[in-house]
């Protein structure tokens, strides 16, 4: 069950940006974009980003982003009814900026695929 401590891969920021842009839903990217300015309480994120009654997609997105070191979860115990808050890490900021650099390329590739010019 040996496992190496995970050193980041070469082009780590680009690979994470690619992962963000390649997701079926853009929720992970929108969460990270929302956290660029300042930390947000969980409830505020939910109100801004989730339509409908279930916030499971948001919980899962935050879990994915946290496991990759893109977001940190803090707690403000002065807000007992909603103590969790989230902030982008330095890596999260770098990745969302990289994703924005890549967005035009991604859109071009998507259009090319739709037009049958690219496989997959």
């Amino acid at each position, binding site marked *: 069950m040996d496992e*190496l*401590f*995970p050193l980041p891969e*070469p*082009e780590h920021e680009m690979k994470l940006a690619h992962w963000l842009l390649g997701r079926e839903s853009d929720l992970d990217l929108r969460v990270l974009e929302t956290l660029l300015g300042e930390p947000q309480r969980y409830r505020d994120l939910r109100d801004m980003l989730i339509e409908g009654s279930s916030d499971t997609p948001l919980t899962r997105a935050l879990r994915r982003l946290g*496991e990759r070191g893109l977001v940190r979860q803090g*707690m403000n115990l002065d807000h007992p009814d909603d103590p969790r808050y989230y902030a982008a890490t330095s890596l999260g900021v770098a990745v969302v900026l990289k994703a924005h650099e890549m967005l035009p390329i991604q859109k071009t590739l998507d259009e090319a695929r739709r037009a049958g010019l690219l496989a997959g």
Partner: protein
Amino acid sequence: MTTPSFRDVVAKHHNDSDAVLVASREPCISIALDEDANVHGRAFQHANPDGLAELELRDSWIMAILLCAGDTTEHIARWILEGGRDPRRVVLYFHTDTDPRAALEAWHEAGLPVYSTWTIEDWRQLHKHFGAAWNVRVYDDFR
């Protein structure tokens, strides 16, 4: 000026940073020991909450506090305050059976910010999150 790549900074400096796993009761002790036993490539220090004063840490460090049901943060909060240490270097891991509010009572009373927390059930969940958190810590310290 270009921003240094995350990979370059972490690969160059990951051995210049200390990581400490703190646990005082089961299953947190086993989770911490499993992390150490199963993961190679970096060395951890282990500590009990009442043995923190014996730690010798370099300027770059990160600490995972594993909190299981019944744990408190009294010793850790005192260690942070008395040493003028940066609480942002502490990641508080709650086992799924832990009541975060009860565990953090002393931390909160000490006026310390709860900068980074995560909920874990086993060492793999700890490993995934703490690995990423340590890499970000190294990047922030050495970029």
